[in-house]
């Protein structure tokens, strides 16, 4: 793995919203995808620059129809079609596989929570403990897959905890389900990632991942 995971203690304040300092499996898979794509992109970019530079360092090639036909074979069929299609097909297939792995599929041990965005706050509720509601703080168990059911009561928002998973929109009238998981107990920063007007910048929240004991305690707590 190229990016690796950063233990919580090393992930200082500066990385609290970083997608490339993953703290859970979904963010980790995507971070790996990014580093591999960066390497591939850098290689392709270098290839193009070298080909461009060489064009200036050569003598004029042969002219005539046969020479042009050969050039079309090399440049257009070879590089333009063959090369780009191979790279892209491989990448697309991989992206599809990864996307499938990130989907909220049914399984044992899954915890469901509900997130409701509004201008400019988040309200979280817990079907495991009906009536329990928290504002701007989402409690989850660490080390277990969590499905967040996301919706909005006013305009469109987006639920994003970069160190745990990608973002998913909160749309009035719709419920979207995001699968995330935190490897370790701790606090993870979340923000809304869809522009929502004057209070957009500070439309954030915190995810607190508990160890098993603390999660049970949270659920068992008296209703506030």
């Amino acid at each position, binding site marked *: 793995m190229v990016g690796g995971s950063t233990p919580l203690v090393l992930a200082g*304040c*500066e*990385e*609290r*919203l*970083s*997608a490339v300092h993953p703290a859970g499996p979904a*963010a980790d898979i*995507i971070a790996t*995808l*990014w580093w591999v*794509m960066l390497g591939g*992109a850098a290689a392709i970019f270098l290839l*193009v*620059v070298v080909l*461009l530079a*060489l*064009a200036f360092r050569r003598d*004029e090639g042969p002219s005539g129809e046969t*020479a*042009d036909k050969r*050039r*079309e074979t090399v*440049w*257009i069929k070879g*590089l*333009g*079609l063959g090369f*780009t*299609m191979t790279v892209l097909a491989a*990448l*697309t297939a991989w*992206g*599809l596989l*990864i*996307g*499938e792995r*990130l*989907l909220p599929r049914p399984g044992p041990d899954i915890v469901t929570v509900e997130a409701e965005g509004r*201008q400019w706050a988040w309200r979280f509720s817990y079907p495991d403990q009906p009536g329990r509601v928290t504002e701007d703080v989402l409690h989850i168990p660490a080390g277990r897959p969590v499905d967040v059911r996301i919706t909005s009561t006013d*305009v*469109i928002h*987006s639920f994003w905890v*970069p160190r745990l998973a*990608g*973002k*998913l929109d909160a*749309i*009035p*009238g*719709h419920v*979207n389900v995001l699968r995330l998981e935190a490897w370790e107990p701790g606090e993870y920063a979340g*923000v809304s990632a*869809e*522009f929502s*007007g*004057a*209070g*957009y*910048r500070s439309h954030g929240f915190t995810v607190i991942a508990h160890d098993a004991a603390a999660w049970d305690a949270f659920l068992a707590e008296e209703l506030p």
Partner: protein
Amino acid sequence: MTEKKRMTALRLHKALYPIWRNDPGWKGVLTTVNNNTIGNMFILGATGMFLAGGILAMLIRAQLASPRSAFMGPEIYNQIFTMHGTIMMFLFAIPFFEALTVFLLPGMLGTRDLAFPRLSSYGFWCYMIGSTIMIVALVAGVAPDGGWFMYPPLSSSAYSSGINTDIWLLGISFIEISAIGAAVEVVVTVLRYRAVGMSLDKLPIFAWYMLVVAVMILTAFPPMILGSLILELERAFDMPFFQAEHGGDSLLWQHLFWLFGHPEVYIIFLPAAGVISMVLPVMARTTLLGYGWVVAAAISLAVLSFGLWVHHMFTTGIPHMGLAFFSAVSTLVAVPTGVQIFAWIGTLWKGRPEMHLPMLWILGFFVTFVMGGLTGVMVAMVPFDWQAHDSYFVVAHLHYVLIGGYVFPMIAGIYYWMPVLTGRKRFFRMGETAFWLVMVGFHGTFLLLHWAGLLGMRRRIDTVEAGSGWESINLLASISGFVLAIGFGLVILDVAVNAFVAVRGPRNPWKAGTLEWATPIPGPSYNVASIPVISSRYPLHDNPDLPVQIARGEGFLAWPDRNRRETLAVSISRGEPEFISVFPKNTIVPFVMAVVTSVMFMAPVFKWYWLMFIAAAGVTVLALVWAWANGSRRDEGLLDAGRGVSLPPHTEVAYKPGWWGSLFLLLADSVLFGSLLFGYAFLWTVAPNWPPPRILQPGILGPVLALAGVALASSGIRLGDRAIREDGAPWRGLLASLAGLAALGAAAATVFAGTTYNAHAYDATLWVIAGYVIFHAGLAGLMVLFLLCRIGTGYVSARRFGDARVVRLWIDYAVLTAALGLGAAWLPGVLP
């Protein structure tokens, strides 16, 4: 050249000049219909908008330079970034390539003007007036502030109650008139107005690109125009298209917007690719490698670009297999892009590249655009996009693509065509300095912003948080941003100084092979003194004497004996002479009509609907005046076109230019109608709170009226058309057709009676469908009345029946859409 030959060219110029010139003085600015003049004004206007958008960019970078900047609050900042995006996309990028096309295309094709000169003028003035309104709104502090893609419900009246959003929706729709108008013109010009012998496989490659772009504009803009219309209807009359609790869906807007928004990116890129395909081979002293491949790549790019709008919506919760399809198309679109990139590099290898200033900018394009393309493939990967979406990674990506892939090639083009545009060669050499400032400034600004995005910096936040890890990146970006701005400023200064004070240059300094270099520079108002005959893609390489031969009148339509503006229309595929097109004189009607149209669009902002209806009536009257001016009251028969060829005038062909223009306008209209039906189906299947509480029952009256209308309208116009051609009495047929159109309108009106416009998104959609049917029936009816007046005053004869064919086209369209629209509206009511 001998003295005698020079004399001939001069005499021909003296004969053509008084016919084609603009009115003198300031009046000429308002009445001109000349593509060179309008192109010049258009380029200046779009450059002005680039400066305005650039100033806003500098304000953004000033705000983000330091954490917790108190430079401006979110209320102002939101207007600034919304207007930066809006101006750069709608008021700079699209108009600038349209301007360049208006200017260059007739010269490249070897013809005298664009197909519809008055439409050039109307489009330009709509653009200038609309842009001015947007800038005034910005200065007055009532500019739109919901982001340039205006997502409801944030842009709905509940969350944006001011007039800001109305100004955006109506102002941008108004400005799009110029894009649609220019697109219709470009398509008809490329297809019908060319040098003789310029078959489609000999088109200058830029013309191919612009043909593709113009068709894309006609098919991509209508969804957004429809979206703007129904969002405005929701804001003004509470018709709940986007309100979930009443069966609307905010996602419908996103679909309509991105159905426009993604092709839009290629609409912007393809003209730039066209410029590169023209300039790069000349800079490498060779010809373009793989012309056919490049044309195929442009066409497939256009087709694919309509299949990937959903990649802007990967985070909206669409099922993953749906996303996978759009992800695959999004990466597939990189293939034709790759084909073009490698065709260009292959062209450089084939030739002997020389490092002139346009070449420098093209190299800047390669380096920047390839990086932008690669990050584009990254965000096409659905999982990665879940992280990168709406972050500064995307901001950086889109600036790499748009500045690297559009602005740099356009600058290359401006320097390359400067002799054609201004008649001068570059003398002051600030250009190289400016280039390096732009390069350093650009990458300094945007390269590390990718990283800031991955570190969690969201787009559209109004300040940078201290301790976020993004501060130093943003400070660097702000400093580099100002270097970039100085660089662009220097480019504009360099071009301006060279345009006004540099020495006159020689004709065709680059030794290019295409026809825009065949005219004296700067080009005369009639562009070519005679329409040349060509036999390859690079006529000036085959025949270096061609410019002289054109000037001496050795082509078609040289001597203007009939003392009017004439040019040659050719057959679509082979470029053989078909008829003589008579162009309109200078006129103020397009300018006045643009002013009145602006009133029609702006009155609803202030809810002055009475004024809107007065202005709409004014536009109708002006349109009739416009159409009336075109035609003849006598049969002319075959006319001498030069070179021993006789051709009819356009008034005596079955399908005159106006028919072709109508055809492509109706293409755009049909896409709008299709988007409306798409919206209806989308709401029915996806939106929450469906089915609606009450479904319309068609009853008997409506369907009977509709069937009678369809039969009468379409058979009536055909009877009338035949009567005209046989010198019979067309009255009965035309009146029957008029009655049929009235019946269609009445059938649609029964839909109003059976529904309540603001009860549910279903009702609201049906009202728009019925309104669409009534509007088109009314429009076609007006045309029938117009045709009756033309017949009464002698403009129509057995030879001159082109007007009837135009009316027939519009009636057929009205009938077809009425049948489809009313059928869709009634169908749910009859299903069990």
